[in-house]
């Protein structure tokens, strides 16, 4: 991935991400998030993470975000009114956020930091493909994989418990 291309994607990502947090309508925020996810998927492809990019679109943008939109629609949420109050609070929040980013940026450029990590050369064969990932997943990551099954089960039970109508 060439630098200009990266910068273009990066810019688009940032704009799109800002859209998530600046749009007043929840639906638009959600749509911005979907676009961010798509852009990220593209970046993943450039990073040789083909399967992950695919999953990003299918699972994330496809399933999870639909769920979000569904709930937004279900609850019939309106746009937030224009923020007038708590300027100070938002300013501090933005400042804190900027500092967080700044710190990581600082980390990559100052002396004695991680600036010199660079990027390694060509990837081995099969890197990022379904087969390779699958093999890794079902051998080395067998345990976490099994845990995710429990995790999802818990989530299902939880969602049901919380969302089902009151019976009594």
């Amino acid at each position, binding site marked *: 991935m060439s630098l200009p291309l990266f910068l273009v994607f990066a810019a688009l990502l940032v704009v799109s991400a800002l859209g998530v947090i600046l749009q007043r309508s929840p639906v638009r925020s959600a749509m911005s998030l979907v676009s961010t996810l798509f852009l990220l998927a593209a970046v993943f492809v450039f990073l040789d993470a083909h399967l992950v990019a695919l999953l990003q679109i299918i699972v994330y943008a496809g399933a999870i975000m639909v769920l979000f939109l569904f709930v937004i629609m279900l609850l019939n949420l309106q746009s937030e009114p224009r923020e007038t109050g708590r300027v100070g*609070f938002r300013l501090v*929040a933005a400042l*804190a*956020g900027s*500092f*967080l980013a700044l*710190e990581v940026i*600082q980390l990559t450029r*100052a002396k004695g930091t991680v600036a010199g990590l660079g990027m390694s050369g060509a990837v081995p064969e099969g890197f990022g493909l379904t087969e390779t990932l699958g093999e890794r997943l079902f051998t080395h990551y067998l345990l976490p994989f099994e845990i995710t099954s429990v995790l999802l089960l818990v989530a299902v039970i939880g969602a049901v418990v919380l969302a089902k109508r009151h019976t009594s």
Partner: protein
Amino acid sequence: MHETVSANYLWLIPALPLLGVLINLTLGATLGQRAGRGLVSLVAPGMVIAAFGVSVTAFATLLGLPEGTALLDNVYPWISAGSLHLDVAFRVDALSAVMILVVTGVGSLIHIYSVGYMAHEPDLARYFTYLNLFTFSMLVLVLADNLPLLFVGWEGVGLCSYLLIGFWYDKDENASAGKKAFIVNRIGDAGFLLGLFLLFWNLGAGPHTLAFSEIAAHVKQIPLGTVTAIALLMFIGATGKSAQLPLYVWLPDAMAGPTPVSALIHAATMVTAGVYMIARLNFLYVLTPTALAVVAWVGALTALFAATIGLAQNDIKKVLAYSTISQLGYMFLAVGVGAFSAGVFHLMTHAFFKALLFLGAGSVIHGMSGEQDMQKMGGLRRHMPITFGTFFIANLAIAGIPGFAGFFSKDEILLRAFTSENGSPALWLIGAVGAGLTAFYMYRLLFLTFYGECRADKEVAHHIHESPNSMTIPLVVLAALSVVGGWIGMPAHWLWGNQFEHFLAPVFGHGETEHVSAALEYGLMGASVAIALLGIAIAYFFYIVQPGMPMLIAWRAGRLYDLVFNKYYVDELYDAVVVQPIQRTSTWLWRVWDATVIDGLVNGVAETVAANSSLWRRLQTGNVQHYALSFLIGAVVIIGYYVWR
């Protein structure tokens, strides 16, 4: 004075009155009123008389022993800590023999007298409990073989004094007077204790018993400065106990107690403890002329000072009280000039005549239904002949009329004040003037009380009567003693000379009499007698011949009279300089320092915690985003620390 003979019965002397205390305390209160009174009236004097008996035995034993030998009764080990090994041990040598005889002898008489005097007192058991306890303490004081044990008696008599002064406690003044006595005494005692410690730690290595013989053996190693300090500190104790300047103020107030108490404690025995103590420690005092001089001058000044106050008092007992202070001053003057035996001699004669005076005054008060103001007396000699007679003898004795007891002892003191190497003409002069004043105020008292017209209310006057036998007999005995008591200590050139001094010589061994010329001796004697007679004459003139004169003089003298009449405002001065500031400081310490500063600090810490608690609590707004912000800021700070450190 180093040989001792064991006499394991000496403990009986103090133990008998103590037994009396226990009986009075337990049975006296629990038996019925009548039985209890009867028992107490028997037991209390009985025990003291028994103690007198034992004392006489001890005295006789002592006389039979070679000169300088003392009786010793080591009862049991008392306090032992480190190098300190104190025993409860009693010692009878010449000095304490005199003392125990005086204490038990005069004590017996006063106990007997009390049976009559206190006949109408409902709380008789308590009275005799105290009185017996006092006798016990006084005997411990004079019998003690070591200094701390002496201190036990020393404080014990103070306690009894406190209790007896406040015996009629339902009057606040009485209670206050008792308290004052105790506290002023305590001030002196503090000095005594310090002196004791200083002495102990300077005795050198090795276990110490603080027995007098041991102190005497070691005292010469102590540097002079330290000895002086010890002596002066001890003397502070003596000024408290024996009512000397500047700690005399309690004694006049102490007259609030029953009159026999005044006689026993505040005239005959307790107040002389200071003199006894210095006499006991004579080996220490003689080493330090500075301390001796202080003792002598304080004594002399007190003698004069108290005498002047005595001139203008109207309360019969107050006059006697100031007289006592004054007479005690003479004793200190004596020991201060190194005339220990003279001091003790005066102690003894004073015990006789002053006890007599007090008991006589008590008899008067008894007869006057409790009246003490001389302005309201007069003409009593007709109603109370025995009292008057004995009182008159006592007056002669205290005024120093030759032949009576007081003459011999006072004369000896004045002589030595003049001639001793520690003495000076100035001391003599002060003493002599004091003697004149004494004669004046004592005769003023006599004339006001017994002569002239009765100035009492009709009601009171009607009831004036002579006292019962239990009271008059002791008066007579004491009157006899006030005459003959002095004869054992004749001036050197008279008859058998000073047997008393000779008897005490083993104790005061070093103080061999300097020989003075007979001319000087007679000259001084004559001068002092003349001064005394002059005093009597003036009194006669003022109160018999020209009864209006005193008023006139008092009016003329104005300020001066006020000053004397109000006792130089010393009580007021002490109140303003000592008592009030302490009270104010205390209140300040409590209200401001304790409550505001310290607790303020403590509560301040608590409040700071609470304030912080409140503050942090407010930060817990319930708003998730505030929580998230604090989270984020925390994160930023931590990461920032690692990035930029």
